[in-house]
C-alpha cells in the first residue's frame, strides 16, 4: 500500500471521528447551559479547549458567546476542528484514497459530506440544534458501519482503525484534561462547587452516561468517573480501551509486514504504563499532569506512525 494512501485513510477516519466528538461536546455544553446558566461561559471555554479550537476562536472572536461558539464549532470552514471543516477534510482524504475504499464506504463519506454541507449551510437555530447534532452523529456512524461491514481486513483497515482509536484516545484525554477540576478527589475544596450536572456532562461527552449507570448505578464519585474514563477496558471511548486498540492495530501491521517499528514500542510502553497504573496512583501523582502527559505521548505516537509508514516521505 502507498504511504500516502495509509496516511489518507488514517486522517480520513481521524477527521470523521472528530466531527462526532465535536458534535458531542456541543451537545454537552448546550445541556449545561440549560441547567446551569451561571457557569455557561466557563463551560464553553473548556469545550473550545477540549475541541482543540481555543486559540483559533480567541483570535477570531475573542469574547465567549454561546451562539458564536456553537457556530464556530459547527461551521467555521477555516477551522479544521469544526464539524464542517473536519468533514471536508475527511472527504478530501476519501477522494485521495478512493481506490482503497469499498463503494459503500466511499458513498457514505460522500453522502455525509453532501448532507452536512447542506445542513450547515446557514447558522443553526438553537431549536434545531439537537436534530442537527443527531444528524452529525448518525453520519459518522454510517461511515463506520460501512467500514466494519464491507472493508477488507487488510493493512488499509488497520490504518483506518488506528485513526479512529488514536483520535478517540486524544479526545477523551483532552476532555479529562479540561475537566480535571470537576474530577478532583472527593473532599478537596473545589469539589464542593461542582454539581452532578458536571459529571453527567463529562460522561455525555463520551456517550457513556448510560454505560456508567449500568456499571455503578447512581454512585457518582470523581474517582470512579475518572477511572471509568481513563482505565476502563470495556468502554469504547476510555483512554486505555483506545490505546489497546492502537497497540493492537500496530501489532497487526507488524505481523503483516514482518517487522516491528519504533511506533510499536511507543504504543506498547504507553499501554503498559496505563495497564499498571491505578486511579489512586494517578491522583497521587496529579490528574492534570497525567492527562497532559497522555495527550503529548499520543501526539508523539501519531508522528512516529506517520514516519514509520511513510505517509509523506
Amino acid at each position, binding site marked *: 500500500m502507498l504511504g500516502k494512501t495509509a496516511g489518507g485513510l488514517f486522517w480520513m477516519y481521524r477527521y470523521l471521528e472528530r466531527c462526532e466528538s465535536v458534535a458531542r461536546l456541543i451537545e454537552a455544553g448546550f445541556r449545561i447551559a440549560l441547567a446551569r446558566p451561571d457557569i455557561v461561559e466557563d463551560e464553553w471555554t473548556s469545550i473550545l479547549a477540549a475541541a482543540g479550537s481555543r486559540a483559533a476562536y480567541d483570535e477570531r472572536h475573542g469574547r465567549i458567546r454561546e451562539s458564536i461558539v456553537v457556530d464556530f464549532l459547527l461551521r467555521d470552514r477555516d477551522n479544521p476542528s469544526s464539524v464542517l471543516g473536519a468533514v471536508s477534510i475527511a472527504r478530501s482524504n476519501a477522494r485521495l484514497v478512493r481506490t482503497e475504499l469499498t463503494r459503500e464506504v466511499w458513498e457514505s463519506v460522500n453522502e455525509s459530506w453532501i448532507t452536512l454541507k447542506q445542513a450547515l449551510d446557514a447558522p443553526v437555530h438553537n431549536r434545531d440544534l439537537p436534530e442537527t447534532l443527531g444528524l452529525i452523529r448518525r453520519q459518522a456512524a454510517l461511515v463506520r458501519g460501512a467500514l466494519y461491514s464491507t472493508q477488507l481486513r487488510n493493512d488499509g483497515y488497520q490504518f483506518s482503525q488506528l485513526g479512529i482509536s488514536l483520535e478517540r484516545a486524544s479526545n477523551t484525554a483532552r476532555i479529562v484534561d479540561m475537566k480535571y477540576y470537576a474530577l478532583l478527589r472527593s473532599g478537596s475544596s473545589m469539589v464542593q462547587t461542582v454539581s452532578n450536572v458536571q459529571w453527567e456532562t463529562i460522561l455525555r461527552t463520551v456517550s457513556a452516561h448510560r454505560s456508567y449507570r449500568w456499571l455503578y448505578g447512581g454512585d457518582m464519585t470523581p474517582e470512579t468517573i475518572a477511572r471509568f474514563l481513563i482505565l476502563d477496558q470495556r468502554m469504547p471511548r476510555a483512554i486505555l480501551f483506545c490505546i489497546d486498540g492502537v497497540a493492537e492495530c500496530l501489532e497487526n501491521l507488524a505481523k503483516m509486514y514482518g517487522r516491528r517499528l519504533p511506533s510499536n514500542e511507543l504504543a506498547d510502553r504507553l499501554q503498559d504504563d496505563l495497564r499498571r497504573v491505578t486511579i489512586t496512583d494517578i491522583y497521587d501523582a496529579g490528574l492534570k499532569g497525567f492527562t497532559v502527559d497522555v495527550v503529548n505521548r499520543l501526539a508523539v505516537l501519531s508522528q512516529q506512525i506517520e514516519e514509520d*509508514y511513510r505517509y509523506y516521505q
Partner: protein
Amino acid sequence: MQDKPTFFDEMFDSSGQARPAYAQLVRWLEDEDFKRLIRKSDDAEAFFRRTGITFNVYSQQEAEERLIPFDLLPRIITALEWSRLTRGIEQRVRAINAFLHDIYHRQEILRAGRVPVELIARNAAFVPQMIGVDPPGGVYTHIVGVDLVRTGSDEFYVLEDNARTPSGVSYMLENRETMIHMFPELFAQIHVRQVGDYPTHLRRSLVAAAPAATQGRAVVAVLTPGIHNSAYFEHSFLADQMGAELVEGHDLRVDNGRIAMRTTQGFMPVDVLYRRVDDDYLDPLVFNPDSLLGVPGIMDIYRAGGITIANAPGTGIADDKAIYSYMPDIVEFYTGERAILKNVPTWRCGEADSLAYVLDHLDELVVKEVHGSGGYGMLVGPAASKKELASFRRKLIKSPGNYIAQPTLALSTVPILTKSGLAPRHVDLRPYVLVSPDRVTITPGGLTRVALKKGSLVVNSSQGGGTKDTWVLED
C-alpha cells in the same frame, strides 16, 4: 444566404418515423409515462452526485465539482455500422503507431515527401528525446480516443485522433451502469453489447506491454496530477477498476534503476505507468523544469527500458491538428490501403492560398487552434458574432500557422429528453481503442457527447455539453 441546413437525425427519419435501430426503443418510450422519465432524469443526477462522478472545472478559483449532464435517451449504433467503423478505426490506429515509430526512427515518410519536414521539426509536440527509443512491446499509443462525427446515414468523419491521454472513458462506463440501474427492463428487451470489461482489457493491454525489467506480476500504476485535476474522478475510477495503484509524482522516485513508489513498506518498483499528466510535466529534468507533477529522472529510466509509459512521450505529434490533414496519406503510406474513415477537409492556414480562402469564408468555417483542445480557442463561424469574427481574423493574420479551418459539418442529431418532450441535439462519438503488442481492442460504443443547447455544435463538457449512453446492437 444558403438554405437552412437539414441535419441527419439518428432516431427519426425525415417523415418522423423511427429508424429501424431505434424502433424498439421508441415503442418503449411511447409506453412510458413521461413524468416518470423526467423524475428518473433527476434520480440519475442524484445518483451521480452520491457516487461522486464529477469533474472539476478549469479556471475556477475554488475547485468546484460539477456533474456532466447525462441524458437518458441512448444513442444507438447498429452492428453493421459498428463493424465498418471498427475496421476504419483499427486501420487508423495501426497507422498512427507505425507513423510514430517511423517519425522517431528513420523518418521514411519525410524522406518520401509525404509529410513536410518542417511540420515535424518545428512542432512543439515532437519530442526529440524519443528519437531512437523503442517503447516496450513497440506500442506508442496504448489508449486512443478517436473522435467521430456523423453527417448522414453512411457518412462518418474523423474529427480528431486523441493519441495523448484521451479522457472520458469513465463516463462511458458509468453511463451504462446508470442506465442498467434505472431501466433494467430495457436491456432485457434490446440486446446491447457490453462495455463493462473495458478496465479488464485496459489492464491486460498495459501488462502486455510491460518492460523486460518486470519481475513476476507486473505492477501497474495510474499517475494523476492530484485531486484538483478536472479528471481526477476518472483517474481514481480507472485505478480502482484495474486494481492499479493511484500515484502522484511525489509518490515516485528513481530507485535502483527503476521507478519506485513509496509504500508503507519502502520503495517498490512500478512496471507500467498509465500517466494522466502531459508530456511537458512528466520529467522536470527533461521537460518543464518547474513541474511538480512528474518524476525527475523518469525519462532516463524509460529510455533504458526500466518502465513502460502509457501513452509513450511524444505521441502528440500524431494527433496534432496540423498533422491531421495528412492522415489519409499517413494511413496509405503505412498500410498500403486507402483510409476507410474519412477526414474532414482541412485548410492549413499556414499556406497562403488556404489562408486567403479561410479569410474570405470565415463566417462559414470552423477555425481551430492547432494546439488547442477542449473546445477552447475555437471559432464556429456561422454562430459567431461580428466582433468575434473580426477578432479571429486578426489572430489568423498575425499567426496563420497556428490555425486550421474546416467546413462547418452538418453534425447528426439524436433527441434528448427535455421538460417539454424530445428535442434533437448535435452529437459526436469517441470510441476508446486499446493497443497492445498483439492486438487492437475497441470497446463497442464509446462516449457520445451531446450539445445540450439548441443548435449548438460544441459538445465539450467544459462548454456545456452532456453525455449519452451509447449502444452498439448485437448482431
